[in-house]
């Protein structure tokens, strides 16, 4: 009888209910922390959003979609986050593909491209305000070269926030996509080359299908980052106008109006809007190739 043996023995058959393995308990502290400080606050926030200070159960959500200053933040956020994510992922794909081959400068170049990750929003904001400012180096250089004499309007508006989203988001997308590209077995494109595929066709028919899952993942993670844009929208944008993003609305409701119920509702709407894009991206992914990225012999 296997049930009475003290040592775990490999079973030949598949038992309907495997015996409880105490090692599974190793996952318990992590799960407990997540339940206590992620699931519980989330559920609490969801409930709180249905308990407005006055009015019916859905009053907060009705208020959100009836107040122009609130519902337009969804559009504002999408208009910033979607172009920024597309630019970052497309740019990162092109540049990671160009720098995929190990060379003497590959490591230096990839390090240089990743460094902006560490700059922090404030340094980027300060740098952009100084560099793109009316008396900054860019304006001076353009004037000196007689290329453009007018004033440069790249800060305190939509473009300022978009540029800062690209500077912070691109290195992240690049790092991720580079690791996916180098994970593809180089024997596959080489096989394609022997069959007569040129550079573009190798990319189009070998790399791109294999990269699709990674690209979707990079898109989702980049989008999450861009969607929660908050400090740069305040420091580099016009927080009252075109860059009044949904995170600002949620923050104002919570810490300026002290209406935690409304703030939770805004946070839930933010999560839903963001999740809708992620689910759409994952749904598109399932239409493409899924499978191993290594050759037949693994």
């Amino acid at each position, binding site marked *: 009888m296997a049930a009475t043996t003290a040592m775990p023995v490999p079973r030949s058959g598949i038992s309907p209910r495997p015996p409880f393995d105490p090692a599974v308990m190793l996952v318990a502290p992590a799960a407990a922390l997540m339940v206590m*400080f992620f699931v519980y606050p989330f559920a609490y926030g969801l409930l709180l959003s249905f308990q407005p200070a006055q009015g019916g159960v859905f009053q907060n959500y009705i208020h959100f979609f009836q107040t122009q200053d609130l519902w337009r933040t969804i559009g504002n956020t999408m208009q910033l986050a979607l172009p920024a994510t597309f630019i970052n992922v497309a740019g990162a794909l092109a540049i990671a593909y160009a720098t995929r081959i190990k060379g003497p400068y590959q490591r230096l170049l990839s390090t240089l491209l990743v460094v902006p990750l560490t700059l922090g929003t404030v340094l980027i904001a300060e740098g952009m305000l100084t560099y793109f400012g009316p008396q900054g180096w860019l304006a001076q250089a353009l004037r000196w070269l007689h290329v453009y004499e007018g004033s440069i309007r790249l800060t305190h508006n939509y473009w300022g926030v978009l540029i800062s989203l690209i500077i912070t988001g691109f290195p992240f997308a690049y790092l991720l996509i580079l690791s996916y590209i180098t994970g593809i077995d180089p024997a596959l494109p080489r096989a394609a080359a022997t069959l007569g595929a040129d550079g573009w066709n190798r990319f189009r028919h070998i790399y791109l299908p294999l990269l699709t899952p990674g690209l979707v993942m990079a898109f989702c993670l980049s989008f999450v980052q861009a969607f929660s844009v908050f400090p740069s929208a305040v420091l580099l944008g016009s927080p009252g106008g075109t860059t009044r993003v949904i995170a600002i609305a949620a923050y104002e409701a919570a810490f300026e109006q002290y209406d935690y119920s409304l703030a939770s509702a805004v946070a839930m709407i933010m999560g839903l809007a963001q999740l809708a894009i992620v689910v759409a991206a994952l749904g598109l992914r399932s239409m493409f190739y899924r499978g191993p990225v290594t050759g037949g012999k693994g």
Partner: protein
Amino acid sequence: MSTHTDNHNPLRDRAWRALVWGVIAFFLVNVGMMILAVATNSVATRWLGTWLPEAYTTGWYLSAWKEFQLSHVLVVTVVVVFSVVFLSLLIGVPAAYTLARKDFRGKKLLTLLFLLPLMVPPITYGIPLATVMYQLHLAGTLPGVIIANMIPALPFVILVMTPFVEQIDTNIESAARVFGANTRQMFIYTLVPLLAPGVLAAGLLVLVRTVAMFELTFLVAGPDTQTLVVALYYAVFAAGVRAGQSVDAMAMIYMAITVLWLLIALRFVNPTQLVSRVKEHPVKG
């Protein structure tokens, strides 16, 4: 038949390559100039409308250090960051081991639970989390800030560590079992040494991410528990009261710290091996 199949359309290939390298150069030059502008301003006495400032001084670094109570902020940052790294590894590595090796009911649900915090923007769960923490009187305290920062850090450790565990041969664990090691002994004497590179990688990446984590710290920190990134934001937000050079000096200090850690991280972790690892086939003549 020719084997030089690259030459179907050399002009198009060359134009494309020039475009890509042009974009790389444009990006690096502009970001570099931006950093240089901040660096120049942080050592400038007065800089208005000229190529370079009139004179240079290191006084802004000294005044930033005093004005923003940087020594206190740095102590808080170090305590928060290292606690987050240590606790996330302590809890995350065993969890990653279980998720990589064991099969149990509810595993899919658990995986989703660990993936969600990375997929939801920090503000979305940060606001309800801050509300709960204010009720528990955790907001504004060091433990509160540490816990809040662990919510994205712990799933990140699990996500990075699971593939590392999967590539360790199960026979090594069986051998330890045969020699009578219990789970704890097997963990300490066989798995931890084998996992050390992965643990180091995950720890350094969590460290870099936590130093830069703005939203969650911003939402739950009090005046005494601000980390560097939050203190920096408040310094700019209250601009006008403070000299711009002083803020720039502080931003440079922040950058120096994070760049240092990133370079250390990249020294140990090859970014190209983060997600999957494939042995490189030698190109045969």
